[in-house]
């Protein structure tokens, strides 16, 4: 039972001041084992805050990140799953599922986590699953102003993943969940 927090596109301080208070009250240290962040934090203070939630932090570089040392892509293995991380502004057209599938095959991962569009998405194709946790602060994107703050918490348990989606809609936190298993086609990789 491994809890992995996936979030990104906070754009602090340029487009948003901070995470919504309701999100912050839920995110307490000690519960989460890993954090994967798609990028665009943008400042060191956000990095330090995330580090205080969980020491195992993975970040990839977004186009507005002030720390230039983050990598463009990252892969890691948690339990039975290989996860890939990339901000997503590199993949054109932005948010296009086929292009992202191509990136996923290149990285050879079961779950690809990307951002940039600031819209939550969970999509399955033959190569695996693509998850976009959206923007944790609800910052406006290059495409639209209408953004609900959202992030994702994955519970990886053996060959099964339960994805909990936390969204702030009209001031209330709504939680949904998505359930999927690693299938035979995915197991070939």
């Amino acid at each position: 039972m491994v809890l992995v927090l996936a979030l990104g596109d906070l754009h602090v301080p340029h487009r948003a001041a901070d995470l919504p208070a309701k999100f912050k009250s839920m995110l307490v240290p000690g519960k989460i084992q890993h954090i994967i962040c798609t990028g665009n934090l943008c400042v060191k203070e956000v990095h330090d805050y995330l580090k205080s939630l969980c020491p195992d932090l993975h970040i990839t570089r977004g186009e507005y990140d002030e720390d230039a040392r983050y990598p463009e892509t990252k892969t890691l293995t948690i339990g039975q799953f290989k996860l890939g991380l990339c901000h997503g502004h590199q993949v054109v057209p932005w948010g296009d599922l086929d292009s992202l599938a191509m990136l996923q095959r290149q990285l050879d991962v079961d779950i690809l986590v990307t951002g940039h569009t600031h819209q939550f998405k969970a999509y399955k194709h033959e190569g695996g699953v693509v998850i976009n946790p959206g923007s944790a602060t609800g910052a406006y994107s290059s495409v639209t102003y209408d953004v609900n703050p959202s992030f994702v918490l994955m519970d990886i348990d053996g060959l099964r993943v339960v994805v909990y989606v936390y969204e702030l809609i009209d001031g209330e936190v709504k939680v949904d969940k998505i359930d999927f298993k690693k299938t035979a086609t995915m197991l070939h990789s």
Partner: protein
Amino acid sequence: MRKKAARAVPEWLNSPLWSAAPPVPAPPDPYGADLSPSSSPPPPPKPPPPTPPVPPPSYEQAVGSSRRARGEAVREGEDDDDDSRGAALQAHLLSDFKLALSKKVINTGELRRLACLGVPDGSAGVRPLVWKLLLGYLPTEHAFWPHELEKKRSQYNAYKDEFLLNPSEKIRRFEKSKLLRKKELNSEKIGLLPRSVVTNEEHPLSFGKSSLWNQYFQESEIVEQIDRDVKRTHPDMPFFSSKTNQESLRRILIIYSKLNSSVRYVQGMNEVLAPLFYVFKNDPDPSNSASAEADTFFCFVELLSGFKDNYCKHLDNSQVGIRSTLSKLSQLLKRHDKELWRHMEITTKVYPQYYAFRWITLLLTMEFTFNVCIHIWDAILGDPEGPQDTLTRICCAMLVLVRRRLLAGDFTANIQLLQHYPPTNIDHLLHIANRLRGSF
């Protein structure tokens, strides 16, 4: 004259039974006439045991004489004699036990009497059975044993399932039982993954009272504490370094803490659990040894039920908490050995909470070596007066046994002595504890 005698040492304390040096004959003074008549001729180094002048009740006589015989045998230090006498007594006791245990309906009184004499060690495997009977885990009718054991062991398995799973596993089982087959279709379809609503705030970051996740994280602190303590239990013994045994101890303590929300887990419970588990796991009967964990759990519950109040913080100052137990110890000492009591409590101000706290809450597991401790537990569990009272009497006996050194020492020396209690002859100790009987 008479009133001064009340402060004097009771004469049975001055008998040569447990002091190495013969007692100094009292100087001729008007108060000395009532004291210790048996001390007037200083006894030769190897005397026949003098009978106590006060006629003791019959139970005590039976226990006292056989204990003294064993004590004498050990004290005289003649190895050949000692071994043969000791071995003969052990064999005799073993056959007594086997007789008592083979009856269709066990006579508990008889068993208790034998247990107070000390359960023989060795591979006869009598001790696990005796302890299970004394703690009430097994009923007295022989015929009901298989049924009871079966029932209790399956109950323990149910507890394991209920309390030891993490929330992911629990939710998965719950869903499986509701036959949510629709989920299977997801594995083959391509496209946006369907979202389902989360009910009852059942998500990992929830703070809801009924949320499985919330309860899990709140209890994780206790679980971590149990983990740490289990790893530190008796590190010198290979039995407790084995991973499987540590896992068993861990499971027992976690289940106990979940079932008893008033006490949860207190540091030290692992020490009380250790001898129980050791004895049951080393049962020569393989079917018993395999289910040692389940048996230990129920016996642990039974044993702690008498002592639970000592562990409750908010009961500390009440009639039943640890403070009242300590004051009972103090009162017992005062009644039997006023001189020592006065020296401890008034002159040197060595109060029971400085030394007896650990003695009582850990049932003497940390004061003696492991094997000695198991022997003392034979008496604690076997005594008809009950574990609480017996333990208090044994603690008082421990004080009386080192009274010379205590009377000679100041605060620091006495605390030092009592917190690192010197190894002593257990039979002497238990004999003195016996003498203090009937004073509650």
